[in-house]
């Protein structure tokens, strides 16, 4: 047999485009309305946060400026939302809208940076533990267990009582508490991926450990890491607000959603907006992040169980169609 005779096997339809798994995922997520709307919300919130100084300059309300004449009642209480103060004012007569926007900068920054740090550490630790196994794995896994079972608030309190509350301390505490969850998932995935034949193939070629970990294993576990990271961002935002609420996170006058809500605590009876607007913004943000994460999970790996899915309708329709066809035949 000559080479030309075996060629037919190699000829395929040229119209098939080489689409990567990521491109396929993108194609899937584009049809997911819930995820798209949530994604747009996240983008919009980020843009608003970035544009906070511009908006403040445009309406002339500095976040720390106290409007003693127009922003506070005769009894010294916050005033309700109106044309000047869209979200009303706070206890010192500051523009709540502007403060919520500035708070978004801090809260989003903390959420994204802390989660990013956690993902970086988690992926590294998980890869090392899963790939090398043995003593390294035992030590690192115990470490993850300890971190995951540690009462985080006690830890946060301890750190803050040593270092004092600050943006860095907040990010540190959240990252410290989040990396283990990622590391555990990465470790599990690595354990199964390293037994794949293509890893053995890489070794037979002469690839080093680092190349195998980062070129052959990492891309295959990126999907769950991305999903988990997206879901950890809202958790980090919630975490930040809780720390700030307890006075262990971002310290006033720097506004964050957590300390805005903390201040509003004493005013919920007289000024619903003081509590309501920061709470609603926070909820909108975390909910949007969670829904985006859910959508990404669905798009990257359609087999994974999804929390909030539109696929049910599609599945039921498919089943009905199949039944009909069977009857017709």
């Amino acid at each position, binding site marked *: *047999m000559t*080479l030309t005779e*075996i*060629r037919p*096997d*190699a*000829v*395929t339809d040229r119209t*098939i485009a*080489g*689409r*990567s*798994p990521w491109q396929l995922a993108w194609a899937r997520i584009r049809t997911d309305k819930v995820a798209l709307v949530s994604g747009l919300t996240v983008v919009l919130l980020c843009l608003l946060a970035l544009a906070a100084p511009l908006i403040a300059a445009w309406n002339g309300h500095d976040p720390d400026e106290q409007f003693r004449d127009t922003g506070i009642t005769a009894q010294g209480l916050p005033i309700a939302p109106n044309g000047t103060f869209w979200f009303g004012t706070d206890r010192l007569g500051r523009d709540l809208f502007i403060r919520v926007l500035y708070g978004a900068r801090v809260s989003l920054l903390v959420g994204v940076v802390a989660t990013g740090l956690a993902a970086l550490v988690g992926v590294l630790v998980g890869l090392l533990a899963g790939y090398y196994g043995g003593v390294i794995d*035992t030590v690192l896994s115990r470490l993850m267990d300890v971190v995951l079972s540690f009462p985080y608030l006690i830890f946060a309190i301890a750190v803050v009582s040593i270092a004092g509350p600050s943006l860095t301390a907040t990010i540190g505490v959240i990252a410290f508490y989040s990396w283990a969850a990622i590391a555990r998932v990465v470790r599990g995935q690595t354990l199964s991926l390293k037994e*794949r*034949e*293509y890893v*053995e*193939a*890489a*070794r*037979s*070629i*002469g*690839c*080093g450990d680092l*190349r195998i970990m980062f*070129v*052959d294993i990492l*891309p*295959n576990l990126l999907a769950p890491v991305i999903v988990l990271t997206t879901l950890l961002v809202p958790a980090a935002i919630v975490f930040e607000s809780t720390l700030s609420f307890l006075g262990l996170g971002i310290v006033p006058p720097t506004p964050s959603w957590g300390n805005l809500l903390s201040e509003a605590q004493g005013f919920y009876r007289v000024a619903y907006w003081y509590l309501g607007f920061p709470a609603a913004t926070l909820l909108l943000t975390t909910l949007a992040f969670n829904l985006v994460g859910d959508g990404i999970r669905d798009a990257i790996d359609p087999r994974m169980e999804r929390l909030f899915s539109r696929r049910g309708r599609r599945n039921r329709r498919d089943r009905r169609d199949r039944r009909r066809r069977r009857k017709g035949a």
Partner: protein
Amino acid sequence: MLLEVENVVKHFPITTGLLVKQTIGQVSAVDGVSFDLSPGETLGLVGETGCGKSTLARCVAGLHPITSGRVRFDGDDITNLPRARMRAYRRDIQVIFQDPYGSLNPRRRVGSIIADPLVVHRVSRGTELRRTVQELMERVGLNPEHYNRFPAEFSGGQRQRIGVARALALRPRLIICDEPVSALDVSIQAQILNLLKDLQDEFGLTYLFIAHDLSVVRHISDRIAVMYLGKIVELAGADELHEHPRHPYTNALLSATAVADPDEAERRRRIILTGDVPSPIDPPSGCRFHPRCPKARERCSSEEPPPALRDHLVACHFPVEAGEDLTTSGSGGRPA
């Protein structure tokens, strides 16, 4: 000799305990195997699933450390070399894997998979790399334009061609083919076998070719070794082994291969082996095949036959004589 394998033993320990590992037993996957390969030769290695042939392949390729024995490549001892020193030999020894789906990373493009050996060993880069890879693809019968596609977009046969191209990239001297066609349709099997044969002629390759099917290796191999429970039971020239199989196990394997000629099939009688392959954790005493052997006698259970070595050698106390029929058990008289 290009490759000399001498009395190779591979045991996997069975451990228990969560923190402190205790060894409570071992699996003797490969138990004292010797053979050698001359340049340009193909040695077929045949045996049932679990007989240790894939483990042997991995030991030879330096993927598993071996428990004892020697592996020499081109006169150099490469037994359990540290990874850094083994790297130099990996250019000469390449592996083609069984599973055309599992052995290609699904997240990487075909071009970069084939280029991997060239990149890792810093053979070429840039546009030269791309050209080399595309030449390789063309040589193994793939469309070079499919350079940027993912493994999932290829059929099983095409994927195995990718595996061949990857193994060929460094122009190795020895390719260990670990059941390269077992996962493929019969029609595709022939194409891959032909490709391997053409490449051997063109590049003067030496193959260690593993399969569980005797008919697959017959046409590609110069010599064939039959493995059973971690040991080589018979080693002979390909035609010799098919025409005059001497080990009862080889006879049984041969009787089970499919034959295209109906007259031949009519004449052929299947030797049905009783029982399952015993566990390699606790192999039978004496000759490992004795519990299932139609010719077994008392001596077989107590005394281990000498190992099969060069030329036509068989590890059996009572080899099958020409014309002997094993379908009736015991010392075979011809059927009526």
